[in-house]
């Protein structure tokens, strides 16, 4: 399969900027991506754009054309909504469009504006990623759903809050040199364990922040990259998507993410790699338990072992397979519609050697990005490789 080049990537700082509109955020991210790529805006043939809660946070549906306009692009534009996996699925379709030979240049990305809703409003908005009738009306929140999974994991495989705390500590540490990260502060295991409970066993420091931000990628065909002499050493070589039942209580597993397993198997097969080839990963750690479930689903850890991976140094920056060198959703921030595309931007930079944490993955050739929607009723996985 012909690789799809990551010609350029752009991120806004992720953080708390309630006054900034979605269109302003995406304009900034896409401008950086175009400058990084050397691709002319007029060459863009399609815009694929991820966004989750725009109706609630900005009273704005139909964001596709609005965001193409904000990016200065005249091309058909479509919004993708798949909860926190919105831009992961947008990237997947962009990859297909280019592979099919139907486009040479696609602008893909996503934006979320969340902090203007306040904590209660954002909690309510995030909850609509769950089943409204059978989960939300019973009082289940988004952190509450992951807490149910954490509790189920402890009961089935063992482990405790301290294991989870090491995930948070690791990701905060990784974010220290990342100028786009929302939190650039060291925390300790004690800080995590002593933080106020959100939904037991998860506390404040087990949870990602509420964030504003945007991410944009300029993806091109191999032929276009060659013809225009683009500097684009990293390509997306595999894509996969998996699905599961909407409500957690209807799942076969409460302490595993089969949708992510399916997505990774498909993506690995597509790229012709396996889990053992993965040098570095960005995974969807909206809560600390989510990173544990993700690395198990990706085959980077055996089922039941993921809980000790951060504590024992297997996924830390100096470990065998560093996970979330960007700081992850936990410390980098989680503007939900932007997250999937931002993870691909981070992996591309890590593999290209342009990331502040690239020193930890010198010589690495293969990375994966895992993006999850809701309580992983949706999941996408992308494989990126260095192809000089």
């Amino acid at each position, binding site marked *: 399969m012909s690789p799809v080049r990551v010609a350029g990537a752009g991120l806004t700082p992720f953080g708390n900027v309630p006054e900034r509109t979605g269109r302003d955020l995406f304009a900034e991210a896409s401008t950086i991506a175009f400058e990084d790529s050397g691709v002319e805006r007029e060459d863009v043939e399609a815009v694929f754009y991820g966004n989750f809660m725009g109706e609630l946070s900005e009273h704005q549906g139909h964001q596709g054309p609005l965001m193409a306009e904000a990016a200065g692009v005249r091309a058909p534009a479509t919004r993708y909504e798949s909860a926190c996996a919105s831009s992961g699925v947008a990237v997947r379709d962009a990859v297909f469009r280019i592979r099919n030979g139907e486009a040479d240049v696609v602008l893909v990305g996503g934006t979320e504006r969340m902090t203007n809703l306040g904590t209660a409003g954002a909690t309510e908005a995030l909850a609509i990623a769950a089943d409204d009738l059978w989960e939300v009306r019973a*009082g289940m929140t988004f952190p509450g759903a992951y807490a149910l999974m954490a509790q189920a994991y402890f009961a089935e495989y063992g482990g405790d809050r301290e294991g989870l705390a090491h995930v948070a500590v690791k990701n905060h540490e990784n974010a220290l040199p990342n100028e786009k990260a929302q939190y650039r502060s060291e925390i300790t295991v004690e800080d995590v364990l002593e933080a106020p409970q959100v939904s037991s066993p998860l506390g404040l420091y087990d949870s990602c922040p509420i964030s504003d931000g945007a991410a944009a990628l300029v993806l091109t065909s191999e032929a276009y990259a060659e013809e225009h002499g683009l500097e684009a050493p990293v390509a997306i070589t595999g894509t996969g998507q998996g699905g599961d039942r909407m409500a957690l209580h209807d799942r076969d597993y409460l302490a595993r993410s089969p949708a992510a397993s399916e997505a990774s198997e498909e993506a690995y097969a597509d790229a012709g790699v396996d889990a053992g080839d993965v040098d570095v990963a960005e995974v969807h750690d909206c809560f600390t338990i989510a990173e544990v479930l993700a690395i198990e689903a990706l085959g980077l850890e055996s089922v039941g072992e993921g809980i000790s991976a951060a504590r024992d140094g297997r996924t830390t920056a100096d470990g065998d397979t560093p996970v979330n060198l960007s700081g992850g959703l936990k410390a980098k921030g989680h503007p939900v519609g932007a997250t999937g595309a931002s993870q691909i931007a981070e992996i591309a930079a890590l593999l290209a050697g342009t990331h502040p944490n690239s020193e930890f993955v010198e010589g690495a050739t293969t990375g994966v990005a895992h993006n999850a929607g809701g309580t992983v009723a949706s999941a996408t996985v992308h494989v990126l490789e260095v192809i000089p």
Partner: protein
Amino acid sequence: MSDSGESEGVQDAGFDDWVDAAEEGTAYYLECPDGHGSLPPRRVCPECGLTDLERVDVPETGTVETYTVTHVPTPAFEDDAPYATAIADFGPVRITGQVVGTDPDVVEDGLEVELEITVSQTTGERVIGFDPLVR
């Protein structure tokens, strides 16, 4: 927050009917000819695609499979927190609900419960609850 429409507004067919039945102690699930259980409203068995679904009584008691105590709720449950949310196994179906009538801290895996429709202290809306057999 969406309005469940108990006394005003529009009902959610299937769901509000189910809550009515549960309130009267006659909660049901939907069973397909192959014996797969699922919760309403539904026209198609999500497991096999068969469309001939029949109402069958939910077993009297269920077992807490996993639970959490929520301290930071959505605005619709602001005055209810902290409260315990559990997934309980009723055999053919699992259900998510709030554990009622007991201190959230005593909830544990394996706790036997009965369905009991309760109301949100914040909104007065009906909520699926689980009443422990032993407190």
